[in-house]
């Protein structure tokens, strides 16, 4: 039986280094190629030796698909393609293709230039890697080869994020990447049609969370920022340069405008301005409202938000700073955090998910004394707030997507095992489909049961449907044909056509049965009696009395002769071909008895 095999090399019961191998109808596809923010050793990249132990990546993989530009989905790409070695196609959307290399370069700089690591990918490798990328449009059907096709759907989440359908023949898999089912201030909601894939591989970051309304969260966020600024405190919002940053900037920008606030808002790193530029150029990927009004007012041109300079951190008085990276694991956000952590007037707002091992994760889990580099202990007195602004679908959203796509199986990745377990049960209960949650390196096999497409001759189809046109065209009806199988081609034709095509002669099979009845009358009278009787009994059939004295019921022939010895006995010869339905025959033989 055909099967689909799925092996996560990363993101199996975990968040980070998303990388999922899918084998479908003889094709091997790798979904995402991310890095893990919680690790600094080998574990930060997926373990590609799973594939390379049996040969080259290029020979094994038919293509690689990147869902969006977040590093936990694309961070290992240059390592994978240039250091391990992969020369096949890599697919991603245009915005992802544009932004991905910048984040990779940023990541490389932090790792190599700041942390001094060697044996890491180089700038040139990023460039070479990007040359292998093929950009795809939304909804475009990309023919990877003769059989394998992929198609991108809008996923919300971040600019250019996409879900991908992978299809071979009539078997298909949908991979969601990260997605968001509710539109926000700058992006739309994920959307997919009822494509009924054999398998839906979905992220499950917020598998157990059902978030309150977005409006409440926004109001809460603004209130906290406002209060801190009012009492002269500083607000640090660690974000990734692209994504939530723009969302929160739009939120604060409109709030500042409305409340006429004066406290400065800064955005750290040179990346930002560039980042906003991408949003301007790829405005077709944002939500409807922004797209509609961009000619009059581009939402990504901020009036109140200015570029941050390192020296500003020591300025007295209130301010709000967006700083990268978002999990406080390195860079500017961590520097500012260290400066401000000691003052209880200040506040840090974590607007997104933090991976285990990061400073962000530690302070969110209540830790207030942190060991920094050089055994230094940092005491955190500032207020720590967590507010989920990450654009992931919550439990409700995940269920909604399943309802939209109607998959036959579901597989969870990109989440924590415990939460997955809960969601898995919920999915199995509500949709009665199998739900899987493999760990990294564990293979899940799903059996598919595809129907077989064959060519039917229009003559046969028309004949069958024409019969069906009356009285009810929608009613299913029985059809008879012959399937010719030749060199992997399947054609369904009428039996007559099949015989003709193959140059075979028909072999006629006829049955004749002698039925003896007691009837002293003349032969033609007997025939007439039988005829009248049959006509009365078999109202739905065409019963005919032929001039030569015989009777036909459809294709069944009945003749009567007198018995050679006993004139009082008449012999009925009932003759039919093999193709005559058993029903007619039974009727005739039984009714002949009757008479």
């Amino acid at each position, binding site marked *: 039986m055909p099967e689909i095999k799925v092996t996560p090399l990363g993101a199996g019961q975990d968040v980070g280094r998303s990388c999922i191998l899918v084998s479908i109808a003889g094709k091997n596809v790798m979904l995402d190629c991310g890095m893990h923010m919680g690790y600094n050793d080998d574990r930060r990249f997926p373990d590609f030796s799973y594939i390379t132990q049996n040969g080259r990546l290029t020979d094994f993989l038919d293509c690689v698909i990147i869902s969006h530009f977040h590093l936990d989905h694309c961070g290992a790409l240059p390592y994978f393609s240039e250091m391990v070695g992969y020369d096949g196609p890599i697919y991603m959307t*245009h915005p992802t293709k544009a932004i991905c290399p910048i984040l990779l370069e940023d990541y490389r700089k932090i790792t190599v230039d700041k942390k001094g690591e060697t044996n890491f990918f180089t700038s040139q490798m990023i460039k070479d890697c990007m040359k292998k990328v093929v950009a795809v449009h939304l909804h475009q059907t990309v023919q990877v080869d003769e059989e394998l096709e992929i198609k991108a759907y809008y996923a919300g989440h971040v600019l250019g994020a996409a879900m991908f359908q992978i299809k071979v023949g009539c078997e298909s898999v949908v991979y969601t990447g990260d997605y968001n089912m509710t539109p926000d201030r700058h992006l739309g909601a994920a959307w997919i049609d009822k494509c009924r894939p054999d398998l839906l591989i979905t992220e499950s970051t917020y598998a157990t969370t059902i978030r309150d309304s977005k409006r409440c969260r926004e109001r809460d966020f603004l209130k906290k920022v406002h209060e801190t600024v009012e009492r002269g405190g500083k607000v640090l919002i660690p974000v990734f340069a692209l994504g939530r940053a723009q969302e929160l900037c739009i939120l604060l920008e409109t709030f500042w405008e409305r409340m006429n606030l004066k406290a400065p808002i800064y955005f750290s790193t040179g990346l930002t301005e560039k980042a906003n530029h991408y949003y301007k150029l790829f405005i077709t990927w944002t939500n409807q409202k922004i797209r509609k009004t961009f000619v009059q007012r581009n939402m990504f041109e901020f009036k109140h938000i200015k570029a941050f300079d390192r020296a500003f951190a020591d300025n007295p008085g209130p301010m709000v700073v967006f700083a990268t990276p978002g999990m406080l694991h390195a860079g500017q956000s961590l520097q500012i955090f260290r400066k401000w952590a000691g003052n209880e007037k200040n506040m840090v707002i974590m607007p997104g998910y933090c991976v285990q091992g990061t400073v962000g994760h530690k302070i969110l889990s209540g830790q207030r004394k942190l060991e920094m580099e050089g055994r230094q202990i940092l005491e955190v007195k500032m207020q720590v707030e967590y507010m989920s602004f990450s654009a992931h679908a919550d439990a409700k959203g995940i269920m909604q997507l399943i309802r939209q796509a109607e998959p036959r199986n579901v597989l969870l990745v990109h989440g924590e095992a415990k939460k997955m377990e809960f969601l898995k049960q919920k999915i199995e209960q509500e949709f009665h489909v199998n739900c899987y949650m493999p760990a990294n390196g564990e293979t899940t096999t799903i059996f598919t049961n595809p129907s077989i497409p064959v060519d*039917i001759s229009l003559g046969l189809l028309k004949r069958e449907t024409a019969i069906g046109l009356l009285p009810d065209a929608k009613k299913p009806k029985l059809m008879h044909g012959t399937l010719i199988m030749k060199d992997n081609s399947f054609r369904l034709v009428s039996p007559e056509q099949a015989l003709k095509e193959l140059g075979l002669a028909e072999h006629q099979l006829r049955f004749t049965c002698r039925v003896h009845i007691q009837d002293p009358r003349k032969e033609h009278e007997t025939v007439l009696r039988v005829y009248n009787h049959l006509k009365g009994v078999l109202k739905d059939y065409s019963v005919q009395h032929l001039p030569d004295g015989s009777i036909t019921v459809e294709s069944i022939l009945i003749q009567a002769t007198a018995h050679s010895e006993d004139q009082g006995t008449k012999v009925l010869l009932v003759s039919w071909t093999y193709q005559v339905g058993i029903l007619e025959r039974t009727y005739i033989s039984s009714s002949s008895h009757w008479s």
Partner: protein
Amino acid sequence: MLDCGLDMTSTLNFLPLPLVQSPRLSKLPGLVLKDGSTFLDKELKECSGHVFVDSVPEFCLPETELLDLSTVDVILISNYHCMMALPYITEYTGFTGTVYATEPTVQIGRLLMEELVNSIERVPKAQSASTWKNKEVQRLLPAPLKDAVEVSMWRKCYTMPEVNAALSKIQLVGYSQKIELFGAVQVTPLSSGYALGSSNWIIQSHYEKVSYVSGSSLLTTHPQPMDQASLKNSDVLILTGLTQIPTANPDGMVGEFCSNLAMTVRNGGNVLVPCYPSGVIYDLLECLYQYIDSAGLSNVPFYFISPVANSSLEFSQIFAEWLCHNKQTKVYLPEPPFPHAELIQTNKLKHYPSIHGDFSNDFKQPCVIFTGHPSLRFGDVVHFMELWGKSSLNTVIFTEPDFSYLDALAPYQPLAMKCVYCPIDTRLNFIQVSKLLKEVQPLHVVCPEQYTQPPPSQSHRTDLMIDCQPPPMSYRRAEVLTLPYKRRYEKIEIMPELADSLVPLEIKPGISLATVSAMLHTKDNKHVLQLPPKPPQPPTSKKRKRVSDDVPECKPLKPLLSGSIPVDQFVQTLEKHGFSDVKVEDTAKGHIVLLQEAETLIQIEEDSTHIICDNDEPLRVHEGRKVKLCCLGCSDAI
């Protein structure tokens, strides 16, 4: 329905609509017919020997009489120029279907319509001429009005609410997106290389493929290059929207455009470029961007005046995915793909919604003005024609190929201004067409009649027609053409349970047959074969009636048989089944097998078998049949 274009050449028969009262136009004499009658002098005016209708310009619609447009399910749009009649169709014909177009096509199409509506609505005209349209009257008029076709069908411009309603019926699609229509056919837009978002369309079923090639370009300008590979293996290729100026080379024309522009400005004159607000203007601005410094034109102001100028310039920058490779790469940097962003930033190019307002303060001469409409009948261009027409220092440069420039200029005669004709039409010429057809090799080509003969004005140029084998099938307005192919097969799906139950039999090496008796389900033009239902259960509950309603009467049909029966084997099988008294007699054509005890006689011939049973018991016959079938195992049931 493929495309929905508007014939705007009808407007050339009308007087221009001036933004500001024009003494010259209002003083034009009324028409006096040959017989001296003057009843038309309010409607028709004469200017330098030409007659014009003094009324709001009207457009010639697509043929709407030929068929009931409410029966059209789908309209496929190939580019923004080919959708200008959409509001007339979607709002006035009972059309309830869907329109498919790409996002840039819709956005820029909206801008073109907006400009059209705006430039006509802001110059309200009190009178609306209709007397001249009367067939009896039209006959008396001088050419070309006398020969204008279907004047009764000409319509005034639509309104913005109608435009919005029409555009709301459009479904956005992307290149290479497969769109299922009613399960019967699949349509796919492909890049055609002519304009932002311009598409050719593939219309295909599982076995037939029709390509619709309209407005395509092989030149490298700003749009994504034309996708030729996907047009291969077409049964029919419908070819239209070729270049209107097959003899002009677009590159040469651009060069001429630049040099004429520079010369005029250097001599202190102004340059007027009548144009559409999107399309070639982007390429012209890009050329000028490279040209102005070297030509010493850095201080000459460039103005782009259109109610949609700003939108057009902004929109051009956000369709990165629809642009050629070079422009896409720029967006990745991230930089705006078109250099007119820089021209605007450095104040070399300024754009205004109209000549009123800011423009009148900023206006400096000599200058270069891009403005519409290319027909010179409405829009801001009318104002500049009136303003600059009297001076031979000024130049009007025609770049759009849709209108004859002489006809466009007719109501402005006599004219002192220089006129330069540099039509830039990047669409396919005949050399490119033959190359394309050789490349994609369609079985049949279908095209408008005009493409199958040389242009009437150059009847010796046999190179200016489509040349392919077999010769193209041509069509004319309101003609019905039957496409030359016969459908023979359709796709059907066999459900796995049914497939499992099939018993294939190898008839010849490599060829197997299986008899299929199955339920045919047809839904949304998709056919599925399932296992036939089990014979109806004896009635057990009240629901019985409903069940038998759903399940059609099920008569298992016996397959056709083929092959012949080896007698020896047959006899052996019979004996195995307990017939001990089998006797075989040879006949002329075959054999007779006698089963005395069963009172049965079996005649076996090459292509037929006849079982005659002397017994009343039908059961017996069944048994015989069973045995018989066993023997036929080595023969074939089809």
